[in-house]
């Protein structure tokens, strides 16, 4: 094995934040080199600070390093200053663990958690010294893999990635390791790359785009079909049935330099069935699989002792929904080893499940930031997106927080949602102002930050057929709200650049032809597109023109029921007609219950794979509004009509 450290070290004084490139984290594996094992370079295509805490990557890192037939190291996208140094000094992409060159690994596996990192993926492949197009790579070159939520529409990256993995990675990485291991043992002779890729198609959850052909009729996609009879027509996602079997990461990495989410992170459940129609994560990660409360407590306790952190985040898609949340928070704070000085942060809080009890427990130690996500300002809009939290739910949660000593909180909203009107946008201001008014009953300092994001429709959601708002329209809505809130010093408005939503729209629902666009943007210097200082919409517009593709057609056009979608051959379990019905229900303002506490409406996620929810409590926490048969009409203009389940979805 080769270490590039002696060549890298002299470059580090010339770059910003050199600690990004040294590794040395507590929990890092540096003595895992096994000459006969399948080697993985797990690469996060964004900066070290963003990528290091990624739990998915850390779980796979540990699991692979526990195996006798595999080992894994990590890599992150070098920042632009480091990239310039690397290119001018002929240094390739390297692992931070032992500083080996990327090219020496059997597999380079990318985590795709956002579409705007796609150009960074190409940049990393190029920095590794490999051809960015899969068809141009040599037999013995590393295989390029990708997983994560964005892999559910793999087509925009189909020309660059050798294989994608759909769903939970815990089990499938073992099968991939074995298949690639055989190829490795064969010495990777000429012609063998085709064979190993063909073999990978036989693993459930693995999609090898080069084994499929996309056909078009003019601009219209006709289908993505396998080229060979043994290659499956559709690829099914992988799901681990019980999180209790996977108490990972056991040794969370503790970085030497500050990163985002710089604390102990313990995943308390995976999946969410609240059924918010804009939320891709909630659709593709079903069903809900709670970790046993006792295991959560053990992971928290051992993790805090091992790392020395004084903050723990209980992560999930909707943390307050965890059956034993109050008990776990109380137990953590009462843990003697923490001396009562541990902060518990609860990301993704649902307002109808956040109680004064939870607030009181959390506030016993240092208070962390609180973020609630009502997502839409008006009840009508929240019915359409199926985020069935009432205004009273929000005000109760806000009251709980202010009464327990918080001074400010953040409210997250989307704009550009289906059928949104200006009164819906302006209702965001009313909600925020009412929250401040509640806060002022408790403290003069009460304030609220409203964070506004432009909605980008995502594959495998009921909104996948919706035409995204144009950036000018999003900008107008932001301005509308800004003007409305201009005089209120207690409500701070923040928003994401609407132009970035357009680029995200191109890549989110794009087909294979969009690969040319991504390559064009990358070749014209467009890396780190998630970073406002580097994002440039004109690059994307030029790339679309150069590729003879139309932004209106890809981003802003409504799709109809019969249109073949670029990801139709990828399955997250959800029946397409369930999604279509839910889209129709959305437009009609029908709500859908949470199936974890009510009978199954057969969306497909459980029935397709013979799995089910793993939930400790049969009722929602705090008797939340949704799924309890409560009268949701109270205090609101339009009563929600919870649709009889028998009529929804199913095939």
């Amino acid at each position: 094995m080769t270490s590039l450290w002696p060549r890298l070290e002299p470059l580090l004084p010339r770059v910003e934040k050199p600690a990004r490139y040294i590794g040395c984290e507590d929990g890092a594996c540096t003595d895992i080199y096994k000459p006969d094992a399948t080697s993985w370079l797990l690469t996060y295509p964004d900066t070290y600070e963003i990528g290091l805490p990624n739990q998915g990557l850390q779980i796979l890192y540990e699991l692979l390093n526990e195996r006798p037939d595999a080992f894994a190291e990590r890599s992150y996208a070098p920042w632009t200053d480091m990239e310039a140094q690397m290119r001018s000094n002929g240094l390739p992409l390297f692992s931070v663990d032992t500083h080996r060159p990327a090219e020496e690994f059997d597999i380079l596996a990318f985590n795709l958690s956002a579409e705007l990192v796609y150009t960074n993926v190409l940049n990393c492949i190029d920095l590794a010294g490999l051809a960015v197009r899969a068809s141009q790579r040599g037999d013995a070159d590393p295989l390029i893999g990708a997983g994560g939520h964005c892999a559910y529409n793999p087509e925009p990256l189909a020309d660059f990635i050798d294989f994608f993995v759909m769903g939970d990675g815990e089990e499938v990485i073992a099968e991939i390791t074995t298949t690639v291991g055989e190829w490795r043992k064969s010495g990777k002779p000429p012609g063998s790359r085709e064979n190993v890729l063909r073999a990978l198609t036989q693993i459930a959850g693995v999609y090898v785009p080069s084994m499929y052909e996309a056909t078009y009729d003019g601009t219209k996609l006709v289908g993505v079909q396998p080229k060979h009879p043994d290659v499956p027509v559709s690829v099914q996602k992988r799901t681990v049935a019980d999180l209790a079997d996977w108490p990972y990461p056991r040794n969370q990495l503790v970085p030497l330099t500050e990163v985002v989410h710089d604390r102990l992170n313990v995943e308390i459940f995976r999946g969410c069935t609240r059924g918010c129609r804009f939320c891709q994560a909630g659709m593709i990660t079903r069903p809900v699989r709670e970790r046993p409360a006792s295991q959560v407590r053990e992971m928290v306790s051992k993790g805090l002792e091992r790392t020395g952190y004084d903050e723990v985040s209980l992560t999930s898609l909707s943390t307050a929904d965890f059956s034993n949340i109050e008990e776990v928070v109380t137990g953590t704070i009462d843990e003697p080893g923490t001396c009562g000085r541990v902060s518990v942060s609860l990301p993704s809080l649902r307002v109808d499940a956040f109680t004064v009890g939870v607030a009181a427990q959390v506030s016993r130690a240092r208070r962390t930031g609180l973020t609630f996500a009502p997502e839409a300002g008006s009840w009508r809009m929240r019915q359409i997106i199926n985020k069935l939290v009432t205004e009273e739910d929000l005000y109760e949660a806000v009251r709980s927080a202010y009464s327990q000593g918080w001074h400010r909180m953040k409210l997250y909203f989307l704009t550009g949602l289906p059928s949104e009107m200006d009164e819906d946008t302006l209702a965001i201001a009313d909600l925020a102002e009412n929250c401040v008014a509640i806060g002022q009953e408790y403290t003069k300092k009460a304030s609220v930050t409203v964070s506004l994001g432009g909605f980008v429709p995502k594959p495998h959601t009921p909104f996948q057929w919706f035409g995204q708002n144009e950036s000018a329209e999003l900008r107008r809505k932001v301005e509308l709200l800004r003007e409305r809130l201009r005089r209120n010093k207690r409500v701070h408005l923040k928003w994401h650049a609407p132009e970035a939503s357009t680029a995200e729209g191109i890549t989110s629902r794009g087909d294979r032809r969009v690969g040319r666009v991504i390559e064009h943007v990358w070749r014209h210097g467009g890396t780190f597109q998630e970073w406002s200082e580097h994002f440039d919409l004109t690059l994307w517009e030029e790339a679309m023109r150069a590729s003879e593709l139309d932004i209106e057609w890809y981003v802003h056009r409504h799709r109809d029921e019969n249109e073949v979608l670029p990801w139709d051959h990828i399955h997250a379990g959800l029946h397409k007609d369930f999604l279509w019905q839910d889209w129709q229900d959305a437009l009609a303002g029908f709500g859908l219950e949470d199936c974890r506490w009510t009978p199954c409406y057969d969306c497909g996620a459980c029935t397709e794979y013979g799995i089910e929810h793993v939930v400790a409590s049969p009722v929602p926490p705090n008797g939340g509004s949704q799924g309890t048969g409560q009268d949701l009409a109270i205090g609101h203009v339009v009563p929600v009509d919870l649709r009889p389940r028998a009529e929804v979805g199913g095939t």
Partner: protein
Amino acid sequence: MGKVRFVGHRDVARIVERALRRCGVPITYSEGFSPRVRMSFGLALPTCYESEAEYLDVPLSPDSIVDGQIACIGWGQGKLHNEQQMQIALSEALPTGFDVVALTVEPKGGGSLQETVVTCGWKFDILGAVAREVEDAIERALAGSEIETERKKKNELVRENIRYGVYDLRMDGESERGPIVIAELSAKPRVIRPSELVDVLAPGAEMGIARRTHQWIEHEGQWQEPLTPSKSPQLKEYS
């Protein structure tokens, strides 16, 4: 020392804080909405520099010294450590490249270890410089009354004569990177960094690795180091 020289001093503070907590050191916290661990580093070590002489003051809670030993709390609850045991425990809890080489418990009201640092000792090499030329440059610099340097201050180039702060300057052999220079530079009114001297000693050359070797304080007219190391720094193995 080693790879961790690229960690900035604010990050070092966080690393130390976690180690203190893991070992159950009876640390104290500031008051207020967001309490912080009380501890103070003296002179910040510039990023990319190594050091074998950093000092840290950590106020302990008043009732934590029992029979001259430190009564641990939190994750160390139930343990009684003497100075040496605590030194070993902290070294083990710190990442590779960090080592506690001396530790002492001072009575309440004792002065800060580092508030009176007057000069720092440094050892650094200059990439690719010619030893003979560096030696000549040192001789010229010490013979004159001016050592003119340039440094960036808030995006402005400041020229300064730093002869007043150069107490010792000499060559000490060569590393594989270039000539090694030993220097003792003043820490008051500001810390003079070895990098400022590189352009004087070898115009246009880059500094290799610089290491702080001493921090001298003035005590009753005598210069001395705040603590005497009880062991030499151990660099834990890393690849």
